[in-house]
């Protein structure tokens, strides 16, 4: 079920999402960002972040007018192509000032053995009285 992120309180945990690190998706991502630094067998590190955000967007629609304010990412282990990963996210902070909500969302990705691959935090802002977008971020 898709909910509006604007309705989520601090502490809300998104459902854990498992995904496959397929060569096809990695190739699609690499073509989209025109990254030629990684060998075809490697996963660009930012692809993991894109994966987790994609999983998040399946669960929560962004409020209209949402803006990505900042991003923190820690790459802990390289992804193994062909393996699977689990993404977790939660609303780590939420505040309101002058009609705008500032929300921090923590992200974590582990491999199939429970080894941390990436952690991070995205901060977004949106109007406190914003309407819901039916589609992603």
């Amino acid at each position, binding site marked *: 079920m898709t909910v509006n992120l604007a309705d989520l309180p601090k502490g809300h945990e998104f459902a854990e999402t498992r995904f496959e690190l397929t060569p096809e998706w990695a190739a699609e991502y690499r073509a*989209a960002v025109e990254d030629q630094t990684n060998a075809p067998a490697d996963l660009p590190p930012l692809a993991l972040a894109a994966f987790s955000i994609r999983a998040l967007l399946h669960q929560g629609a962004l409020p209209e007018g949402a803006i990505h304010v900042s991003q923190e990412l820690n790459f802990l282990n390289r992804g193994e192509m062909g393996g699977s990963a689990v993404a977790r996210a939660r609303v780590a902070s939420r505040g309101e000032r002058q009609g705008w909500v500032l929300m921090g969302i923590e992200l974590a990705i582990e491999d199939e053995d429970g080894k941390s691959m990436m952690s991070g935090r995205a901060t977004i802002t949106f109007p406190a009285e914003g309407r819901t977008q039916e589609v992603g971020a």
Partner: protein
Amino acid sequence: MQQTRDARTYRVGDELPAVTETLTQEKIDRYADASGDHNPLHIDAAYAATTQFGGTIAHGMLVLAYLSEMMTASFGASWAGSGALKVRFRGAARPGDTVTAAGRVIKIDGEKMVCEVECRNQNGEVLISGEASVRVS
């Protein structure tokens, strides 16, 4: 593009090899498909024209990917295995913009190298700024 230099030879003040990409709506659409982020602000010109941006803008994570590409070109596999990034999104990148990701080493603490990083458009406007660090051994 592969790693251009032995990362251990970087010194404080050294510039990282810049990455320059020109954005098009087609590239933004391609990233939307790869990332699953179909926010109309990025892909629907009619909708985007009604927003504060007056037109479509690129996903922040797409522009950030250019910065990550620069870090991979500078530090190779170390970036994917030990990199950390903390940035703020300061401006919007639009179709037609030429984005340059650049960086400079500002601190070396043992194996840890800290870089000031940023993305600017063709007018010199800052789109992203922040710090990236990586362990180089």
